[in-house]
């Protein structure tokens, strides 16, 4: 059976959006896929050594909140200082209590399974980021490099 390939583009840098690329990549690798993830724009946050990801309830009516707050609390309240930090820490402790892996753990599992991670060089330059901020073992390249792999992939997803 020839190895299947999965190509992902990760464009978002929040706690909630960090999960889909790492869950899909690690699972595909476990099933035997060769996997590459191209991190661009805010997705680059997912490659930082120091993962400090947040989730924001602001402008996110789909986010369930304790005590049904999502149904009665005016959305503007979620813009108050400290709300983002509070919701992020609540989300993290909820995930831990439900046995959901941390983003760092899933990322480690991806690296262990030889998932190839590529940081978009253009975005790194655009935001004046330093390679020292990122984890080791990743490549820096552009769109053409992504297509080299994506063009022969079985599954391509933009996240």
């Amino acid at each position: 059976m020839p190895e299947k390939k999965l190509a992902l583009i990760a464009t978002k840098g929040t706690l909630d959006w960090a999960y889909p690329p790492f869950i899909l990549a690690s699972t595909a690798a476990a099933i035997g896929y060769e996997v590459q993830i191209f991190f661009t724009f805010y997705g680059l946050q997912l490659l930082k050594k120091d993962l400090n990801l947040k989730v924001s309830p602001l402008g996110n009516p789909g986010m369930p909140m304790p005590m049904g707050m999502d149904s009665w609390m005016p959305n503007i309240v979620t813009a108050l200082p400290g709300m983002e930090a509070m919701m992020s820490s609540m989300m993290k402790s909820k995930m831990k209590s439900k046995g959901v892996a941390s983003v760092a753990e899933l990322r480690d599992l991806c690296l262990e399974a030889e998932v190839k991670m590529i940081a978009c060089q253009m975005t790194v330059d655009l935001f004046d980021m330093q390679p020292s901020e990122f984890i080791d073992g990743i490549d820096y390249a552009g769109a053409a490099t992504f297509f080299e792999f994506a063009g022969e992939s079985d599954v391509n997803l933009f996240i």
Partner: protein
Amino acid sequence: MSEYTEKFDATGLNCPLPILRSKKVLTSMNSGEVLYVISTDSGSVKDFDAFCKQTGNELLESSEADGKYHYYIKKT
């Protein structure tokens, strides 16, 4: 069903950890050996079935008892 080579208790773990960790144990095992997995994740029933179909490993048994799910996977 009771014969197995390795046992992995995935109790309390949620998707995709039961699959990922089981895969890790399978990698360390020899062809023909059986891995026994216990999980509390109800979504793992379909996932272990799909995992075995796609990796070619044989799902000898998949059952539920007392809110826990039991899998016997023969490594090919």
